[in-house]
């Protein structure tokens, strides 16, 4: 997804001279081509994340369209007050691009994991939270974020995310039904969309008809889609590479509690814990029941 992001930034920078990519000293080598082609549209602010976000906000106040990029925890947590006040309270069109959502940085350890980011980003009034499911969707999301001209948090994985058979072009605020279902729908985001499709396949083998939704925008949630699905399906299973506290699952559960009586929301996600054992991304998923077999088993038990 990171490479897809860079490709999209190159296209955007070529088309929009007011676009600037700011990095907090992240992206050695991967940004070399971009920097060579668009030197006036790249800035390394250094190991200073509060400056990254505050400066981006100041640029936006003055008509530039900055994309502020670094690893999720440094971007969102280190500079959270700048995100809150300088960007959201001032309603500035800054796109915050966090790389390494979930446990994408796996063996680097919990300081580099992002398990709370969707939760805190969701809590910010005026923030749009987009979690692309694939490299292609990442590219579309970059262009869409620019067009929104509002505060956006774009949560990327890292590398190796598979393609997803998208049914429609990405549109902010719209969930995408990738697979029809009747017994249940898995509502997933990010890297878990591919996992959800595999889980649904496993369950189909046992006769359960499980649909899959790519909820690429977590805020605002596509509540219209959930309402339509709830007319015929009474079990939603959310799936995210994020803590069970406060992420996509919570967002869906909140809406269901408010508006979908009789719909049960089963939530799959990372535990409320820092994952300290050194392991690959796939290994961490499996340990937390977020591999396709784990998700399928959890859902099967509820069906």
């Amino acid at each position, binding site marked *: 997804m990171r490479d897809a992001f860079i490709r999209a930034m190159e296209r955007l920078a070529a088309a929009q001279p007011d676009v600037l990519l700011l990095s907090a000293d992240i992206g050695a080598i991967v940004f070399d081509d971009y920097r060579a082609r668009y030197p*006036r549209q790249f800035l390394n*602010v*250094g190991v*200073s994340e*509060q*400056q990254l*976000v*505050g*400066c*981006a*906000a*100041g*640029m*936006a*106040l*003055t*008509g*530039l369209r*900055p994309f502020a990029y670094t690893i999720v925890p440094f971007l969102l947590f280190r500079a959270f*007050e*700048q995100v809150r*006040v*300088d960007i959201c*309270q*001032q309603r500035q069109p800054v796109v915050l691009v966090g790389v390494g959502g979930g446990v994408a940085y796996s063996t680097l350890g919990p300081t580099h994991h992002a398990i709370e980011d969707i939760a805190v980003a969701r809590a910010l009034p005026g923030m749009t939270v987009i979690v692309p499911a694939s490299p292609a969707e990442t590219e579309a999301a970059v262009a869409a974020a620019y067009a929104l001209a509002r505060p956006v948090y774009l949560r990327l994985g890292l590398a190796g995310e598979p393609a997803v058979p998208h049914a429609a072009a990405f549109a902010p605020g719209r969930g995408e039904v990738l697979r029809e279902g009747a017994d249940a729908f898995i509502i997933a985001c990010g890297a878990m969309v591919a996992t959800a499709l595999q889980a649904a396949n496993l369950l189909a083998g046992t006769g359960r008809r499980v649909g899959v939704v790519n909820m690429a925008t977590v805020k605002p949630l596509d509540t219209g889609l959930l309402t339509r699905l709830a007319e015929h399906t009474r079990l939603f299973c959310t799936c995210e590479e994020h803590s069970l506290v406060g992420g996509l699952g919570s967002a869906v559960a909140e809406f269901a509690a408010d508006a979908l009586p009789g719909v049960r929301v089963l939530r799959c996600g990372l535990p409320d814990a820092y994952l300290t054992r050194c392991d690959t991304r796939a290994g961490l998923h499996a340990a937390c029941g977020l591999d396709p077999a784990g998700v399928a088993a959890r859902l099967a038990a509820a069906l």
Partner: protein
Amino acid sequence: MTPSGPDDRLAAAARRLRRTVLDAVHARGGGHIGGMLSLVEILTALYYDWLRLDGGDDRDRCLLSKGHCALLLYQVLAERGLLPAAELEHAVTTGSELCAHPEYRPEWGIEATAGSLGHGLALGSGIAYALARRGSPARTVVILGDGECQEGSVWEAALFAARHRLGNLLAVVDHNGLQAIAPVSDVVSWTSPAALWSACGWRTIEVDGHDPAALCAAFAGVAPGTPPLAVIARTVKGKGVSFMEDAPLWHYRAPDAAEYARACRELDP
């Protein structure tokens, strides 16, 4: 002070603002009066002399990073015709759109939201960078408190601004030596506030922050294509009201009836 016309105008504005801000704090039952009184000449030198407020997108920008002194800012903005008088009258009272810390509203001259210390210089550096990038003649001034300079984000911004030679950026530190619950020297050991700025790559000038002519002369040192300038304005918290001067008690307080009467006599003898 030299008895020239412009200085008289600035001195008169300062006297007027001291009195109006005292009245405003008294009427509201409290306010950050000490830090407002130390700020008066800085704001008059900026708003009545240095800032080019007309110019639309190329106007000069002033960011009050020590946002707790917004009530004084609102007075100045109203005097300069940026803030509607009706808004000023009800500022920081129930139903007003103006709270005790400023919220971004450029049509009223409020160039940035402030209230949590340490944000203004980063914002200002981004504004200055964008203005320089498009060749605008506009300047940006960020007003900080000396206690505020304990926030690390100030130095992230200072390093950035110097590295990118943002000569169109001016920092003014209201150096009154006090913070909320202590003198600044109790909390930090910096031997010279100016040295911090010059170590980051800024030019620095120290001036008497209650001398409008000296402030104006200092601000005249701002020039594009040079290192950014930090003006360390040595001020007295609570300046103008004897019992408030240099008194930590008056960081946030309301004068009672007797104190108010005494303060009025001192400000308008």
